[in-house]
């Protein structure tokens, strides 16, 4: 017993020497193919959503920030709304998460979230209010929009960008491969997702300042 501890202690010293002890600052998001992190959040209409309750359904998570030019790109071009409607038509639960911290760009009250949904004519199943960036943090989101797809078994099957051309120009949308649309098609067809982890692009997610 004791010798084990001493050996372990020396190793501890060794790890101190190379300084490879894990940085607890920021956990990376889950890997594709692993169970999606659970969350519970209240939406802009006061309804509580829990991932555990959505088992059996395919779920899309979209991080948003209405002040972000990249989010606006996809809403101004109606790309996001179209994909939300397509998803809803196929029984997919599309959750838009407003994960900006209070006081930061993209933070919205319930009323503001509903106004935005109306003015954009958006069609998510719900806009989750995530002012402490809990959902974003659990999923390791770094940008808006950062997209995730969770299959009916609760497994994360896609994470990354909305499409393949990282730019703020709406004219690039038709040229880009719409990763989320393609991946959803594959998931609903029971096929593995081809591009399951792609580069997300957009504005830095506005986490609470105190965290680092």
């Amino acid at each position, binding site marked *: 017993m*004791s010798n084990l501890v001493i050996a372990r*202690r*020396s190793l501890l010293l060794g790890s101190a020497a190379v300084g*490879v*002890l894990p940085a607890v600052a920021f956990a990376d998001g889950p890997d594709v193919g692993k169970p999606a992190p659970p969350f519970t959040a209240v939406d802009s209409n006061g309804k509580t959503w829990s991932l555990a309750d959505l088992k059996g359904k395919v779920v899309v998570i979209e991080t948003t920030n209405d002040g972000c030019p990249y989010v606006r790109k996809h809403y101004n071009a109606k790309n996001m709304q179209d994909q939300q409607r397509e998803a809803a038509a196929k029984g997919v639960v599309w959750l838009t998460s407003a994960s900006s911290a209070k006081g930061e760009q993209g933070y919205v009250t319930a009323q503001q979230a509903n106004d935005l949904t109306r003015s954009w004519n958006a069609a998510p199943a719900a806009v989750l209010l995530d002012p402490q960036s809990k959902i974003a943090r659990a999923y390791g989101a*770094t940008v808006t929009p950062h997209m995730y797809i969770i299959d009916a078994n609760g497994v994360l099957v896609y994470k*990354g960008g909305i499409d393949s051309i990282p730019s703020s120009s709406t004219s690039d949308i038709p040229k880009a491969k719409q990763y989320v649309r393609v991946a959803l098609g594959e998931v609903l067809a029971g096929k593995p997702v081809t591009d399951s982890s792609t580069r997300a692009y957009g504005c830095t997610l*506005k986490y609470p300042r105190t965290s680092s």
Partner: protein
Amino acid sequence: MKRLFALLLALLTAAPAFAQSVVQTENVRAELLADASAIKPGEPFWVGLRQTIRPKWHTYWKNPGDSGLPTEITWKLPEGAKADPIVWPRPHLFDLSGVINYGFKDEATLLVRITPPANASGSFKLAAEANWLVCEDVCIPEDGKFELTLPVTATGAPAPPATRAIFDKARQQVPMQSPWPARYGVVKSGDPTLIVEAKGLKADTIRDVYFFPADWGPVASMAKQTASIGAEGIRIPLKRGDAKANLPADLSGTLVLSEKTADGEVRQAFDVTAKLDPNFVPTSSLAAAGGEQLSLVEALLFALLGGLILNLMPCVFPVLAMKAAAFARLAGHERSAMRRDGVAYTLGVLVSFAAMAAIVIAIRTSVGDVSWGFQFQSPVFSLLIAYLFFVVGLNLSGVFEFSSRFAGVGQGLVARGGTAGAFFTGVLAVIVATPCTAPFMAAALGFALSQPAPQTVAVLLALGLGLALPYLALSLTPALQRLMPRPGPWMDRLRQFLAFPMYASAVWMIWVLTQQTGDDGVIYALGGMILIAFAIWLLKLGSGASAATWLRRGLAAVAVLLAFAAALKLEDGSATAASASGGPAAGVNFDGWERFSRARMNEAVAAGKPVFVDFTAAWCITCLVNERVALETQAVRNGFEQAGVVKLKGDWTNRDPEITSLLKELGRAGVPLYLFWAPGAAQPKILPQVLTESLILSELAALPPAAKR
């Protein structure tokens, strides 16, 4: 619409040279510059997109990191002309609440090489459309259109000096091709580890090492990087990124580091391409411990367990056993006093450990977080820890005893009563137990040093709680006393047994040492241990004031001094050992240079020749970079030769005393140091520690004509 109009206007009006080359947006002033005021057909020239960025805002590098987008330039060039990809300055790291971005602040110049066609004539018109994302907390995509018209002449003409200075500065920011080979391997977790084979570096002069991966995918930018520097070079354990594909055959990126030199810190950047090394053995070095990453909870559990085990140590256990027996005899109202006693004792122990944590944190903040970690890379540190383990092992084996006065003090304290007494018993128990707990404490403190402040405090408090727990438990439940083993010979056996893990730890530290210094480390470490054991034996032979005793003491002191002298030898030896093992940066290259000696320098100066002296060292990265970018370029070599400069190079790798004395005279603490004696000068000119080609050339141009021969 407005922009379109501006474009039309630009197209319609015959734009004079440099027109439209500045775009001022809300957050960035962008300017397109050329390093030529007239170009030569077929001969490449450079243009730069210079971004002056609003304070606190940043634009992005080619790999922007976790968010953001790199600046893009689309060229419209005359037929037959060619624009190369952007040559990027070295990036900075921006941490936005944990989201990592790579980019530029204040000012950045993106360089592009343009090759005009061989048949170019008249004027050459470059048009560019650039778009960039500029962010502070919020991000704004911006763009601009630029146009430059340059006359084409038979000889070309350089840009005005002010513009050339901008290009000079920009080129200094461009990473140099790494002078060292690099490889990377994959550890068990699937994460890549990068090794840049920069052998013979001094760990204590290098800090803030960071590898900026060139592309998204193979490496996670969000993960913290902690580089270590050892005999094999620079080792950076990375975290695998999100790309699903296998790791690439070549991992490329930019290695940025700061080197501490006599004049302050110099930031250096190198482009690195690391080949995937299938034979990579992750356990071949210090990183052996890397697999043993402990979570905070684990670390706390081990600290608690370690603290509990401290109670079994011979300096602590008898005291505990005695106290337990005393508790068991008590009854009734004394029990409550006893409980108070136990709590006060616990508090005393915890306060002592908290004080220790405060000291550790104070040391760390005064030394600086990052550089402190590198102290652990020092072979001297490894050797001293190996000695410590060895000496503690000898003690546990019973070869010698630490002064028994300590234990006496301890028993005296425990005998004293009162709540305050119990509190100070706790405080002093921590101090008194030191002879037995030192190795545990050294290890725990070593761990604590590498942790953020809250973890440091938590781990040390857990250790203290472990130490206090049995006493506390006994004071609350005296019945537990029955479960305690009686003091007896088993204590000695346990103590003797514990010596072996100590020796094993010493062996492990020696192995770590050889990783840092090469094979020579073994002979110094083992020789030093023999000397220490010899000294202990001498001291044990007898006491008293006889002449023989004093002689033995003297001898013991000499032996110990010799053992520690090995440590000093190792510090110098680390560079030597590495240079013996080869590698491009392993030695100082004297090609085309004479070896420095003061006599040779004085002679050349007296002869009225211009003399350039380069003081360098194998471990000095800044020296190496200066050689590559300034001292050994063709233009500078030619310039030296034409001016008849006597080139002397002093190698300070092993702290040559002649050079050290000269450095001291000039008030310098180390290398790089460049001296330039103009002919007939009474004093040399000290050049800056970061050289450029143009700086040397202008020094040479300023020489009086007589010297130019």
